[in-house]
């Protein structure tokens, strides 16, 4: 792996140990995650794939501190999330985590600039203007900053969301189908930027997707089925991912 500004090679940005997420009881029990262990290395772009209901979104939510495991442990850096109360969890998300969702990523009443700076505004922190300009410049939204989300295209909205995820220099960025609602051109632009953020700035990104093309932008693909990790693929291509995916239905 070659990364220009990666932090300590092999450092772990986040990990999940024997994580289980169980809904319901008895006959109605559903194991969304069933003993998942995985590590997400710093400075790498990991994609999580799997068919619908495989638990990939649950995995993302649990590792990101949006949801709580029934069993097992999640670490972001050295911090074990299970030991945190809501306030500390909120602070952790604000300071260490960035998010890009599939849709509804932006606050409609705030301008693009304010949306990008949202986590810093919430924290009341000053931002690094140079870094901000670099991020919005690369994402090509520097001329849309005073607009409201309703005045932006879908692709622009997702790029604003990506900028927001990066601007606070979080330890890890979680993306949940970030290109799911975009046309292929906008999707390619967004994913390309995400890959650049990893390569050029050493950003750590974990992305859930069901699109083999999107997954091919990652350094590594983790395959999930029935709440378990069943496989992984390094340096994927759309074809290699698609091949692996075909085995699920079989």
């Amino acid at each position, binding site marked *: 792996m070659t990364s220009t500004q990666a932090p300590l090679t092999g450092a772990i940005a986040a990990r999940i140990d024997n994580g289980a997420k169980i809904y319901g009881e008895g006959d109605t029990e559903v194991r969304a995650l069933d003993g998942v262990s995985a590590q997400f290395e710093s400075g790498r772009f990991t994609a999580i794939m799997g068919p619908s209901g495989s638990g990939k979104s649950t995995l993302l*939510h649990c590792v990101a501190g*949006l*949801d709580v495991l029934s069993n097992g442990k999640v670490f972001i850096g050295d911090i074990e999330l299970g030991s945190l109360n*809501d*306030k500390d969890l*909120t*602070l952790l*998300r*604000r*300071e260490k985590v*960035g*998010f890009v*969702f599939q849709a*509804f*990523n*932006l*606050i*409609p*009443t*705030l301008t693009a600039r*304010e949306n990008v700076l*949202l*986590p810093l*505004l*919430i*924290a*009341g922190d000053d931002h690094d203007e140079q870094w901000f300009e670099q991020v919005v410049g690369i994402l090509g939204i520097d001329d849309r900053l005073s607009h409201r989300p309703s005045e932006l295209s879908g692709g622009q909205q997702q790029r604003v969301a990506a900028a*927001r995820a990066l601007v606070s220099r979080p330890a890890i960025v979680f993306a949940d189908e970030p290109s799911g609602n975009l046309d292929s051109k906008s999707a390619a632009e967004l994913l390309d930027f995400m890959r650049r953020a990893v390569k050029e700035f050493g950003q750590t990104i974990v992305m859930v997707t069901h699109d083999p093309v999107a997954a091919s932008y990652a350094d590594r693909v983790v395959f999930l089925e029935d709440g378990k990790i069943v496989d992984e693929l390094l340096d994927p291509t759309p074809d290699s991912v698609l091949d692996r995916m075909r085995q699920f239905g079989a």
Partner: protein
Amino acid sequence: MIRTALKTVFAHKLRLALTALSVMIGVAFIAGTFIFTDTIDQTFNDLFDDLFEGQDVIVQGETEFDVGFSGPPPMDADVLDAVLAVPGVEAAEGSVGGMAIIYDLEGEAIVPTGPPTIGGSMTEDLRLAGNVDLRDGRTPEGSSEVAIDARTAEDNNIAVGDVVKVQTPTEVAEYEVTAIIGFGESDNLAGATFAGFELATAQRLFELEGQYSSIVVIGEEGTNPDLLRSSIATVLPEGVEAVTAADESAAQSEALSESLGFLQTALLVFALVAVFVASFIIQNTFRIIVRQRQKELALMRAVGATGGQVVWMVVIEAIVVGLVASVLGIAFGFVIAQGLTSVMAAIGFDLPSTTAPLATRTIIVGVAVGLGVTVAAAVLPAVRASRIPPVAALQDVDVRLRMSDRRRTIIGSVVLVAGVALILNGLFGDILDLGPLNELTAIGVGALMVFLAVSMLSSLIVKPFARFLGWPLPSVDNLTGTLAVENSVRKPRRTATTASALMIGLALVAFFFILGDSIKASAGAAIEEGLRADYVVSVTGFSGGFSPALGEELAASDEFDAVTSLRFGFWDRDGSDEFLMGIDTETVDRTIFLGVTQGSVAALGEGGVMVHEDTMSDAGWVLGDTVPMGFATSGLQQVPIVGEYTENGIVSANFLVGLDFYEENFEGFGTDVDFVLAAKAADGVALEDSRAAIEAAAVDYPNVEVRDQAEYRQSQEDQVNQLLVMFNALLILAVIIAVFGIANTLALSIFERTREIGLLRAVGMSRRQTKRMIRWEAIIVAIIGAALGIVVGLFFGIVVTAAMGAQGIDVLSIPSVQIFGLIIFGAVAGLLAAMLPARRAAKLNILEAIAYE
């Protein structure tokens, strides 16, 4: 269709509850008012039924003009002989009555606030005494014995054999208590104190020697009261009539109820204000509901529901909400009735409390109003819902169903202008002939129109206004402040309607503040300019008056240069009650400045009437014209106008007569006593000496209050303040409904913004920050409401004050501190309203929120 609608209602119980709550409070206020006044009516009905128990016919003076609280004029005592001679009469006795204040054993006057202090003669024949019964002792005899009611005796530890003072129009004297009397089951007459004397004594004390107020008759066994009445009527002289006891009981009870009718009307007005406020909340709620269910309703259309069916779905929901709210409201009315009794007691009206009956009328009006208002408020949103195109089910489009801003501006402006015109026309004159609408109704309708128009128009200014209000917020509270401001202006109409609900209550509060302050300022100015006397003596509480003996004693003392007595009286002016003051024309020049512009006070001493200049010009009278004045005692009199005056601030009447004229035309309860005394100390007498002298004289009259100019002014201000407290207490319900409205709208808005709040929480907004964001939003909305209320209240206050010059309110005074306080009050109200919604928003599960569609 109905089943679908009902399912929707019950699927959203919280929404149902919050919406119903606002209607419920309004209905409860209406029902409470009815229950409250029905209770009073019931009490008086029972009271009079008991009082006339066993009596058949009442003979009394006939009056052409039944004005104020004046009883019938007295008759000559020899009428009794004629009555006794009528065949079929078993027994008959004459009686007299008047004011009598009993003192307790420590010498303090026993004056209930509200009910009167009654004195009267006791019948010798107990069969004639109605339900009066001797609980202890024997009927008083001679000139120094008295019977008192059981409640007064019990409350003040007075027993048979004790000696008490009693004040009558003639004197304050000591009497031995020989009897404790009850009235059937009751210990007193609906709270009144009663002192009974032997007939001859009573006639002397009430200055009715050789006269009777009434004659009570019972017929022989088996006599028909109606026939007996007819045969008695044939022997009566002119000016005396006979009525059956049953009719008289009903008439008296009705007269008392009527005199309390103003109370019912006033309370209903406040109740309607509450309902009006509630209608804003309902409309807003249904509008939001329709918007939130846009997709669902469009789907109904897509699968074949007609527009009419969609209207029905929304209306059925409104019917359910309205019905539930009305029924609960009527039940809650009993609590409100209890509250009203407490409010009245707090301001000094001790009302008797018996069982509160639930009349059919209460149920019908309660349900009609609750259901009617809810459905009416939901109709517009329902019709809009039916215009949702089926395609909205498939596309993620925000269908614009609102009125365009331009239309809104035009309609709002027209309504505003029409409302203002109605108010001004009602206040200032007769530019328009409104036909059946009387002035007060016109003003009321005008006020409603102004409120509606301001609500419509305010949605246009909500944006800049909220941004202006919120301008300092981001510096106080960076992001949450910005978000709160922006959230408050997202749906300007929603914010405007929510704020308007608060506006109504606070506008009326501001209006009363201004009117009250203006009355205080005017009274202060009137006292400063018009009161030449050093002291004002007036009655405490509602005891009507005090013996003229006090004024005579003061006039005779060396410390005083002039003592003017003022007496209050009602008369009939073209069919409606008007009042006048009888004044001592010999001394008034030295005690009260009247600003006589035509004629003279001296001329008034010879008879005739002096009229305030505004009343003169309104009626088109000139000096020398005659005014037809109807008096209960003396009938219709053509009274010449002998003078015109400008200052009515102290005498507080627009018609003045001399005391001789007064005595000729008034007789009976409350008219043979002084209402107010204005006393001027003699030259060279030190202030403390005159004060000591007047206090010493007043010792025998514990029901009077002696005040110097400053104290008098203070007492006038206190009275106004008391009224302000009462009005504001009655407006509290309207404000509470508005607070619920803010809470409801916020809760619904938060529901709409679930994903947004989820996102904010996901990217690191803490629960505390989330709460702050909601609170700031509520505060902004509430302050907009308060500010709008102040603007409307200022308008009402200024025009009403300007229109009340003739009532002696000629100074406009705006209490800026209290008015500004309303802004702070609004902010606090907003904070309260935000409590639950903020908590709810903070507790949103982030995952569900971001997954929420």
